[in-house]
């Protein structure tokens, strides 16, 4: 269709990026094939503050909610094996539905905005966190559980003091994948007016210009890398016995 998106795609850029300039002082981003404009970046880097904070909030809330739901489901399924296959299938369906489609499927119910974004992104993390938690709990050696039982630990103590600590590597591995993919996918919440760094790639019906897209993408990827490293460190700190073994 003859959409604004197409015009932007053809190399034109949104007018609001250089409103105060006249045509003969157009900065470098006005040239559609210009890859990266340092001058513009130096002047405008502060415009990325608010979208970055919004992006972080959406990601953290989504992953937090997703984690608690998935973790609870995994604990229930750990005790009641029969619900594992249906839960895996259900979370698999949520994981398969493309997030953009999912946003708009919820629109008649929850409308535009952040709530819809968080519900969809949280639903998206369920599968990976649930599956890894179940896997981690299943990998705990039977002999360890027998020893714990022999020492007089109750079922609940065995779960929290033996099984879950031993499952931490798998749980955090799932969390890492969930966080990194959620940070990337959260750029798409711009389509339901939920803000975030996607607004600096596509805003008011237009694609922005290369410099802005590249800066926003770089912030997204840096954020993903930072969270990945933090979780990796957390995993090392919470499983000291692993370091001993590998040393």
């Amino acid at each position, binding site marked *: 269709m003859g959409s604004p998106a197409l015009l932007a*795609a053809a190399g034109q850029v949104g007018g609001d990026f250089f409103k105060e300039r006249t045509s003969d002082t157009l900065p470098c981003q006005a040239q559609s094939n210009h890859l990266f404009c340092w001058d513009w970046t130096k002047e405008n880097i502060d415009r990325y503050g608010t979208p970055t904070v919004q992006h972080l909030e959406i990601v953290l809330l989504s992953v937090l909610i997703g984690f608690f739901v998935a973790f609870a489901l995994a604990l229930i399924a750990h005790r009641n094996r029969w619900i594992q296959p249906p839960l895996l299938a259900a979370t698999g369906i949520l994981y398969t*539905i493309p997030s953009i*489609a999912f946003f708009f499927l919820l*629109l008649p119910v929850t409308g535009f*905005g952040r709530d819809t974004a968080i519900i969809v992104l949280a639903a998206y993390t369920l599968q990976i966190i649930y599956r890894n938690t179940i896997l981690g709990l299943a990998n705990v050696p039977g002999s360890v559980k027998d020893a714990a039982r022999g020492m007089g630990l109750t079922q609940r103590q065995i779960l929290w003091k033996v099984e879950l600590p031993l499952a931490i590597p798998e749980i955090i591995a799932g969390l890492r994948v969930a966080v990194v993919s959620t940070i990337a996918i959260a750029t798409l919440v711009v389509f339901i007016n939920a803000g975030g760094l996607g607004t600096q790639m596509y805003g008011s019906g237009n694609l922005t210009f290369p410099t802005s*897209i590249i800066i926003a*993408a770089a912030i*997204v990827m840096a954020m993903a890398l930072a969270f990945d490293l933090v979780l990796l460190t957390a995993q090392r700190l919470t499983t000291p016995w692993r370091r001993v073994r590998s040393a």
Partner: protein
Amino acid sequence: MSTLPFASFGGAIEFIFSPQESNVTGGNEVGGFDKSLELLLKHLEVTALALAIALIVALPLGLYLGHKGRGELFAVGFGNAGRAIPELAVIALVAVLIGVGLKTVAPALAILGIAPILVNTYVGVRQVDPAAVEAARGMGMSELGIIRKVELPLAIPTVMGGIRSAAIVILATATIAPLAGVETLGDFIINRNVYGENGLLAGAILVALLALTIEGSLALLQRRLTSDGLKVKTA
């Protein structure tokens, strides 16, 4: 922000099958079965093309690196970094810098599919029992024969897992391909000022159903491709 006053699931279903007046076009009829089918086929075309490119690049590379046992840092690092690439940025940059249309969008989408296929193929081949490879070598199989007849069949479940992830991420991202001039089902969603709110919802329904269908078909294909010997072990 509010919910959509004009959108309803009933209205969206009607939109898919017969052209409707939308709430934004003042009497013009939009949507309908022919339009839906046209966009669906385009969506499938760009997804299949991108997946094919990703397979051609990532599968041989993953098999080679896995067979040689080299480049673990590259394969796994690439797979992890691939997850962090924002899909919107890939489509937007390609559209703005290189140009619009199937020829630029399909390779761009392929980039997103390469990471999961590469890392899963690598890991799958590495997990093959070295004894099986040694036995094949002892029987006089060539290195290429070992890859084709021993390592690949044993790695199929993992490899197919990667291909399924790739297919889903490509299909999902093809939804925003209309930003780069390829009219997929996302056209109903991106151009909501043309199709109205029932069109928006119709697009979402069709994309979701398409994704679930493709995922289901690939799961079936995986079962067909997995050798019977492997199925017994997992059952």
